[in-house]
C-alpha cells in the first residue's frame, strides 16, 4: 500500500452524470471510506464507447486522448461501470500504434484504471462495508465487467457483508440483458426479447432489489421490470454498498423515495 492516501480520479460515466449522480456520490463515499482522496475532474465527458462500437475510430481516438491527458496526474482512475472501465483498461491502448508515445500514455492509463468494486477489493483491500440493507437482493453480471475484467466474486463478497442483506442468485445471471449501448436502439425487438428473458429470471428470484455495476444495463432492466409491473427496485451496486439510498430507485417516482428501514 501507498504511504499517503492514493489520489483517485473518479471517472463519472456519461450516464451517471446525466441520469444518476447518486451513483457517483456513492462511489465517492466508498472510495473515501477505503482511504482514498477523490477528485472528479470537471473536464471529463464520456469514454467514447458509442463511437468506438460504431466503428468511428477517429472520434474515439480524439475522446481517448482527452481522457488520457485529463487523468494522467492521478494514481488511479476508478470507474463505477464495468463497460467504461473496460474501455479505458482494455481498449484504449489498441487505439494507438505500438511504439508511439500515445500508446505508452494509453497503456499507463490502462494500468491504473479500475472498475469501482474490484478496485475496492483488490487495490484497497476492502473486505467488508459498514452498511445495512434489509431485503432480498439479486445481482446481474454485466457483460463487460464480467468478461473483459473478470469481475464476478468481488461484488458478491462485499454484498455479503451488508447487514440484513440476503443475496439470491438468479438463473443465467451472466447472460446479457440486451442493452448493448446502441444495440438496444438499433435492434429494439431482439433487445426486448433478451431483456424479457432477463426480467423473468429476475422475477423468479422474488428479490426486492436488483443490483448491477453498470447504469446502462440497470436502466434497461429497470425499464422492463417497470413495464411488466414487477415490484422490484433497481439500483447500482455502489448505492447499497455505500448505503446511499436517498435517491429513489431507478425509474421510481421521486415521491416514493422512502426505502425499507435500515
Amino acid at each position, binding site marked *: 500500500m501507498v504511504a499517503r492516501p492514493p489520489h483517485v480520479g473518479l471517472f*463519472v460515466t*456519461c450516464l451517471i*452524470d*446525466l*441520469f*444518476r*449522480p447518486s451513483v457517483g*456520490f456513492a462511489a465517492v463515499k466508498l472510495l473515501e471510506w477505503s482511504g482514498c482522496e477523490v477528485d472528479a475532474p*470537471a473536464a*471529463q*465527458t*464520456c469514454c*467514447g464507447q*458509442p*463511437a*468506438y*462500437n*460504431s*466503428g*468511428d*475510430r477517429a*472520434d474515439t481516438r*480524439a475522446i481517448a486522448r*482527452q481522457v488520457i491527458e485529463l487523468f494522467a496526474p492521478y494514481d488511479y482512475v476508478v470507474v463505477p461501470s464495468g463497460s467504461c472501465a473496460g474501455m479505458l483498461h482494455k481498449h484504449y491502448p489498441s487505439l494507438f500504434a505500438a511504439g508511439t508515445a500515445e500508446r505508452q500514455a494509453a497503456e499507463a492509463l490502462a494500468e491504473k484504471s479500475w472498475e469501482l468494486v474490484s478496485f475496492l477489493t483488490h487495490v484497497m483491500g476492502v473486505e467488508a462495508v459498514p452498511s445495512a440493507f434489509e431485503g432480498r437482493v439479486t445481482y446481474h453480471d454485466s*457483460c*463487460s465487467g464480467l*468478461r473483459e475484467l473478470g469481475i464476478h466474486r468481488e461484488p458478491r463478497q462485499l454484498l455479503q457483508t451488508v447487514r440484513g442483506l440476503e443475496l439470491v442468485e438468479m438463473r443465467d445471471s*451472466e*447472460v*446479457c440483458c*440486451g442493452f*448493448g*449501448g446502441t*444495440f*438496444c*436502439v*438499433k*435492434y*429494439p*425487438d*431482439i*433487445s*426486448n426479447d*433478451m*431483456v424479457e*428473458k432477463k426480467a423473468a429470471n429476475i422475477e423468479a428470484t422474488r428479490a426486492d432489489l436488483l443490483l448491477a455495476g453498470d447504469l446502462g444495463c440497470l*436502466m434497461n432492466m*429497470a*425499464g*422492463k421490470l*417497470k*413495464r411488466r409491473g414487477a415490484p422490484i427496485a433497481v439500483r447500482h451496486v455502489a448505492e447499497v454498498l455505500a448505503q446511499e439510498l436517498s*435517491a429513489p430507485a*431507478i*425509474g*421510481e*417516482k*421521486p*415521491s*416514493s423515495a422512502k426505502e425499507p428501514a435500515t
Partner: protein
Amino acid sequence: MQPTSHAFKDNAARALHDEKLQRALLNVPTGFVQKRARARDRLPEFDALREEGVAIKKHALAHLDLYLEAYERKVHESGGHVHWAPTAEDARRIIIDLCKDRGARLVTKGKSMVSEEIGLNDALQAAGITPVETDLGEYIIQLRGETPSHIIAPAVHLTRDQVEADFRRVHTTLPPDRMISEAPELVAEARAMLRQKYFEADIGITGANFLVAETGSSVIVTNEGNGDLTQSLPKVHIVVTSIEKIVPTLEDVSTILRLLARSATGQEFSSYTTFSTGPRRAEDPDGPEEYHVVLLDNGRSALLGTVFEDMLRCIRCGACLNHCPVYQAVGGHAYGWVYSGPMGAVLTPSLVGVEEAGPLPNASTFCGRCEEVCPMRIPLPKMMRHWREREYERHLTPLSYRKGLNLWAWAATRPNIYRRLASVAARALRLLAGRRGGFRRLPLASGWTRYRDFPAPEGKTFHELWKERRRHG
C-alpha cells in the same frame, strides 16, 4: 445460396413472432450450453488444450501454402486427386463435371457446410442429378426444402412435432401407430429410408472437418455414422471442403478433436471419427474406387494477413451460436446465409461482402460470451467491430446515424459545451417526466419505450452537484 443478410432486421422480426421457432430455440440453452459446461468441467486441462489448439491452427495458417502443397502431394501419392476451386462457381463446376463424366444420377451426401456455401444441391439438381442428404438434420430440412439454421444442428429450428409430421407426410410406408417422437426413433426411421440410397448412389459427397498435411487424409466427425456409408459405399468419393481446414499432423487432429466435440455437443468425443486417405487399395475390404478433394478458397486466402485472419481458425463447433443470446432469440435463418451467430457475423461479410451482410456484425451487444466459449479463442466481438469500422470508413453506416455520432463526438471533445448541454438535458428530461419516475413514451427513443419505460434523470448532473458540494463543503 442467395444471401438475405441485408434483410436481417425483417428476418429477425419474423423469427421473434414465430411461435414454433421460439419453442424450438428453447432447446439451445438447455441442451448445448449445459452440456458444454459439464464437459468442460470434467476436463481440468480444457484451457491448456485450447491454447494448444490455437497454436496449431495459427501455425498452420502462417504456413498455409506449404501445408496445402504437402497435402496435395500426399493425396496424389495415395491415388487421389485434388481440385483447386478459387470460387464457389469453380467448385460447383468441378463437382458437376465429375458427376457427369461418370454418368451419375444419384449422389448421397454427408453434412457439409461448404456444400451449402456453394449452393451445391441446387446446382446438382439443375444438372439432372439427385442429391440425397444423409445426416438426419440435413435430411429433414431437405424434405422441407429449407436451409440449415445451425452449423452443427441444421434442423435445430424445428420442434419434434414438426419433424414427426414431415416424416408422416413423406414416408408413406410409416405405420400410423408407430411412435417416432424421440430422436433415436427419428434417426432409425431416416436410416431405414436411406439404406437403399447408399447402395444406389453413384457418388458420395462429404465435407471435411480437417485435412491432414502429413498423410493426405480428410477427417469427418458424425454422430450417426451416415458419413461413413456415404463415402465408402459408392464408387466415387468427393470431399468438398475449404483450405483453412488443414492441420499439419495426425497428432494435431487428435488435439483439436478433443476440443471440438466438447465445445459442440458436450461429448468427450463424437460417435464416429473417420479418416479417409485416397481410394480403396487392393487389400482394402471396401471403399471408393476414386477419391477426389475439391478445395475451396472463395475469399478465404484474402483474409490472410488481415485483421480477420484469426477467423480462419474456426473449427465450426457451433459453441458461439449456442451461447449467443441474439442467436438464441432469432435462430440461424435470420442471418440470411449459411453461417449464423457470431461466427457467421464475422464470416458472412468476409465471404459475401459487408455491403450485403452489414447488419450482421451490428447485431451484437458485444457481450463477449462467444469469445469466452470459442475453443479457438477467436476474438469475435473485436472482429465484428472491425467490420463496423470498415462500414464506417466506406460510409455504409446510415447518414443520420453518422451525423448524430459526429455531433455527439464534437460535443464530447469540448467539455465546457458538453457540461452545459448535459445540464440542460438532465433538467429538461426531469421536467418532462414531472412526478413520474420515467417515461412510457419518448418520441426520440421510441425503439426503447415501445418495450420498456425510460427512467427519468434525477435533475441535476453529477458535475453540477459536485461543484455545489465543494463550494458548500
